[in-house]
């Protein structure tokens, strides 16, 4: 069986400027932050980020890596709106394709199923269709005389054709994984991580701990192994790799750290200090600085 173990640096080494990158997790929950930090340190630019947005989006915007974001929101959960995102938007620094959360889900699903779009009511009548003028409607081919029309109101009905959100690369973080690329999520919600992987050409999992093949059932139920190895090309062990987002049961959100991150958006000096300690450093240095911070 192929050993898919790799490193964060090798993952980032595969990426190119201008790529479309999907990032798993949701808001400030189980985000692959170690890879996001490595992206922030890299020379990459003009990325399109596709995410249920959290501090991954905020940090990448603050470090000037982003051309465009595809999202329905960018939140820190305990702080409603990521202030770095607010700044990037209000200064007009990034383009946005803002869609309904469910449309976003269907876009990933369409890409994973290799169909060009999926129909949905979500978006009809809203400004999602006016702020994204490339979005199209689709009319049901099943008319009133069709044997397949369950309710007459659905005959010839016009719906939104949510386009496939095709990803060049997907990045997700799990609690456990094995070297073959099976990933286990021990927290309460897998979010859409398997779909991000399914929608991408190159698929990378970072994880708190890589365990011996066949032993994920020692860590938690088999039903929590929601990422199977058909979905992955590489797996990198990154303890604390989701910090400062929530990654239960391994650790919760680092709320004091998140507050410091959020506050740095409104003060250039605070951002410089934050970046010096937590962005322009290696992952080992980052972890050391976080440990020092928690101890003080």
């Amino acid at each position, binding site marked *: 069986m192929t050993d898919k173990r790799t490193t964060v640096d090798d993952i980032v080494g595969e990426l190119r400027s201008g790529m479309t990158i999907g990032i798993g997790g949701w808001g400030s929950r189980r985000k692959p932050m170690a890879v996001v930090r490595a992206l922030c340190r890299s020379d990459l630019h003009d990325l399109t980020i596709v995410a249920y947005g959290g501090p991954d989006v905020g940090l990448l915007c603050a470090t000037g890596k982003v051309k465009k974001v595809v999202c329905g*929101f960018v939140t820190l959960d305990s702080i409603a709106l990521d202030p770095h995102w607010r700044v990037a938007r209000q200064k007009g620094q990034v383009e946005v394709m803002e869609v309904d959360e469910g449309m976003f889900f269907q876009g990933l699903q369409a890409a994973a199923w290799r169909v060009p779009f999926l129909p949905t*009511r979500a978006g009809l009548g809203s400004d999602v269709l006016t702020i994204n003028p490339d979005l199209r409607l689709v009319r049901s081919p099943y008319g009133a005389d069709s044997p397949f029309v369950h309710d007459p109101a*659905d005959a010839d009905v016009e719906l939104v054709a949510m386009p496939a959100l095709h990803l060049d690369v997907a990045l997700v973080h799990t609690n456990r994984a094995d070297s073959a690329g099976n990933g286990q999520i021990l927290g*309460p*919600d*897998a979010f859409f991580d398997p779909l991000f992987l399914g929608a991408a050409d190159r698929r990378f999992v970072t994880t708190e701990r890589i365990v011996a093949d066949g032993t994920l059932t020692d860590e938690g139920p088999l039903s929590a192994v929601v990422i199977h190895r058909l979905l992955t090309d590489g797996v990198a062990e990154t303890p604390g790799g989701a910090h400062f987002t929530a990654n239960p049961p391994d650790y919760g959100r680092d709320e004091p750290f998140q507050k410091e991150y959020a506050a740095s958006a409104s003060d250039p000096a605070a951002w410089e200090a934050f970046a010096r300690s937590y962005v322009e450093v290696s992952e080992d240095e980052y972890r050391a600085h976080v440990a020092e911070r928690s101890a003080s």
Partner: protein
Amino acid sequence: MTPAPETPDLPCTRAESCVIACADTWRDAGEIMVSPFGTIPSLGARLAKSTFSPDLVLTDGEAALMLGAPPIATRPAELVREAAMPYRTVFDVVWSGRRHIMMMASQIDRTGNQNISAIGDHRQPKVQLIGVRGAPGNSVNHPTSYWVPDQTVRTFVEQVDVVSGVGYARAEAAGAGATRFHHIRRVVSNLGVFDFETPDHTMRLRSVHPGVTVEDVVQATGFALSIPDQVPETRLPTPEELDLLRTVLDPGSLRDREVKS
């Protein structure tokens, strides 16, 4: 807006009237998922589930359905969960229609459009808000209500800047796909209760909270409201409801942080 007059003789606070108005939004709703945003809608949902709507389904705010209607300040570790409800499953519920959400609105307008996306030009907003989130899909798939804790001419506007939740005129223009399951049940604010039960589905004042006048509401509304000849007061809580709210569901008075008395 002028502050509400002192009314020391009222049997309940303004926040408590708001809780009752929210709770009544889910009266006779049956077995559906209620998704309340904000402290006062959350208390309303718990009050309704504890009393007249026992079959309501509430989530723990994370990824599970929560048993019963525990106090608002209950720590996550102390909640009892009855089923898993990860986000992917939430969309199954949204699109099945077995849900009634009460979202907040940074702006709401005369035909019921809601904005939580941005103030100003969407390409470079004057103020970036949370984002459309699930509002477009929610509003055309299942009953939707709104909670506005600070009704002013800046929140109740003639026309919202970015239509997130879809109002009646927009839904009708979009056709049967949008109107089939579209229903804005109520708008509850700190001043009163509103609905769209008018011939042209524009917003109507349904009741004013005790201590609020119709003129207070008009002054805090940036468009022409439909106002019936007789505007009732939002009903008072029963003694049992008030006791439940004050001693069980919210003994720490978190409700007063959202709406001052």
